[in-house]
């Protein structure tokens, strides 16, 4: 006879890890969001004060705006470009492995290294500006890293560049599952490559595209390292490029960190991320129903 707790015993090791490193911190975050706790402990229950403060905090609105803009800026290119690259590199051409590897290299490079390389490239005296100046295209350096909007766009470009290879692999796997006979049938019916792409490939890949959109949206909304590194940890001039995760880091860390407020901000981040995933789930369900 199987005892009722036998399944729990099997679950125990995995459950212990999840409870210790995910569930406890998560519940802790919810508790702390309603307190004025500091990094060194202490703190009292303050009700909704942290959320009220958030509404009046211009930094929060700037961070929310930036994270949202980031999501809007990186998702469409990250859904479309890797698909096009996947279509190119799946062709059996001599030397194609080199290109596949080249596109994937940024994915395995450390975010810090990538950030530093791009900082050197885009600096006011960096390679890009020096080339532009040498060509006589600009007389003053382009403020890639010191203009509020250009910095955000530069960071988005780094995210897109770094993410291309990862999503390309997902698309490559999915492309392998598109039935070849559908393509052949379309070809027999006289469909050209463009027509076949929209009539066969895209419909077959739609669930994968939704998945890529979901993953890149969640990652885009939680952006930290790109902006942090390109702005030298400052969040841009006047902190105008701070993302929500950066704000949480700036608020909650250090010996004087305001853990209560940072937890409240984290709750907002969680709710938005969850919302994004629920939207994706719904889209996927609709796909299946169709």
């Amino acid at each position, binding site marked *: 006879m199987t005892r009722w707790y036998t399944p729990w015993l099997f679950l125990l090791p995995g459950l212990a890890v999840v*409870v210790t490193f995910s569930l406890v911190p998560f519940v*802790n975050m919810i508790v*702390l969001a309603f307190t004025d706790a500091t990094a060194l*402990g202490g703190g009292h229950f303050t009700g909704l004060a942290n959320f009220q403060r958030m509404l009046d905090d211009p930094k929060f609105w700037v961070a929310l705006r930036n994270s949202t803009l980031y999501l809007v800026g990186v998702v469409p290119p990250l859904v479309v470009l890797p698909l096009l690259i996947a279509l190119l590199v799946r062709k059996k051409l001599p030397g194609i492995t080199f290109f596949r590897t080249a596109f994937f290299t940024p994915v395995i490079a450390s975010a810090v290294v990538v950030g530093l390389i791009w900082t050197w490239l885009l*600096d006011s*005296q960096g390679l890009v500006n020096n080339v532009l100046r040498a060509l006589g295209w600009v007389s003053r350096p382009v403020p890639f890293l010191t203009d509020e909007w250009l910095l955000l766009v530069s960071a988005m470009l780094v995210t897109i560049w770094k993410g291309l290879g990862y999503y390309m692999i997902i698309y490559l796997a999915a492309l392998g599952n598109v039935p070849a006979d559908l393509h052949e049938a379309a070809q027999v019916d006289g469909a050209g490559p463009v027509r076949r792409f929209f009539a066969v490939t895209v419909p077959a890949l739609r669930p994968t595209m939704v998945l890529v959109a979901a993953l890149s949206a969640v990652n885009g909304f939680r952006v930290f390292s790109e902006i942090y590194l390109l702005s030298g940890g*400052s969040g841009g001039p006047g902190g105008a490029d701070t993302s929500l995760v950066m704000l949480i880091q700036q608020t909650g860390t250090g010996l004087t960190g305001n853990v209560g407020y940072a937890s409240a901000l984290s709750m907002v981040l969680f709710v938005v991320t969850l919302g994004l995933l629920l939207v994706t789930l719904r889209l996927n369900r609709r796909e299946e129903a169709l």
Partner: protein
Amino acid sequence: MRTTRRVFLIGLAAATLAGCGLSGTNEQGGAVAGEVKGEITFQTWALKPKYTQYVEGVIASFQQEHPGTTVKWIDQPADGYLTKVLADASAGSLPDVINVPPDLSFPLAKAGQLVNLDEAAADAKKDYLDNAWAAYAIPGKAGTYGFPWYLNTGPVFYNKALFQQAGLNPDSPPTTFAELETAALTMAQKTDRKVAMLGQTPAIADFGLYGVEMMNADGTKFTFNSAKGVELVEMYKRMYDAGGLVAEALTQNYTGSGAKFMAQQTALTPGSAYDLGKFKTDAPSLYANIGITKPITNTGKANMFVHGVSVPTSSKNKPTALAFGRFVTNAANQLAFSKVATIFPSSRDGMKDPYFTTEDGSDEARVRVAAAKQLGDSVNYTPVQFSQQMQDSLRQNLADAMLGKKSAKQALDDAVAECDRLLG
């Protein structure tokens, strides 16, 4: 069966919740008495492997002087030091003797986590330089919370080649803030903004050097938004508009600014005696053109950095911890340390050593002797209460002022308001 399962799940949930929430703060320390023996742990900030031999030597002589004691040395890398201290402090398990600079000691002392040395080691004060001992005092709270260990200060470094390129006399660097502004404007104009004088907007210590009062007498409010503070920011704004500051000055801190100077993209930077060695090895072409001059200050007193060791109230062996803290920072040990590292002793007798008073003709000795002389009346201008969040706020508001989004006065008012709020 159903009830058992429910009890099990409720128990799990309760256990989860029990691990969450609010932890308390420690009790404040008082007078300490007891025998010096038993084991203690000593945590340092990134001293391995360069100074392993020195630290192990100090530990060995302490153990020899106090038989029955064992000092366990833990060295933490600089990266993540704060996180480690924070985690230990939250858990109430800080090592018995811990290396913390004054700005880290402040939140710990405020939370009652550090032993008050004025009570626990009342006779120690006389062994240290007054300004170094004062660095571990907490404004608005009685007591001193760290034995000063080592000090650093330094000259201003400038790039003679870039001065020459801009038509400035490389043998006559700016010595006042007014001269700095004139030189920066000339340099930007003559080089068509290709070379900037400075790499960052003023840090809080620069306000001190300019003669701005940082805080009120009881340390409860910041006051750097005074007319003098506004004057300094307006001066930087003029330099920024003319191209006297690199564009990245709006976003980068001291480290970024130092890198720009090393890359010969800026012409002048404040530094420490340690930096000279770094230039020699990492930027030899800069080193060949390096100019060394006195710090630019309106107060006549240079800026000083302090490191010290504190004893947490959570220590189970305070008598030994206090004895070791004093031992590590005594005159002889500090002097020996200064000779292997580019630092300066905070003990009264240490500074009298010929090592700090006589030159041998080398650049290193020249910087060392000049820095040692200037340390006697240097000031740690950065208030101990000035946290990372406050630094961020100041930097962000200054960037807004440089960009013209806010007036200098408004930017400083906003920074002060935010810092006061963070001070609580």
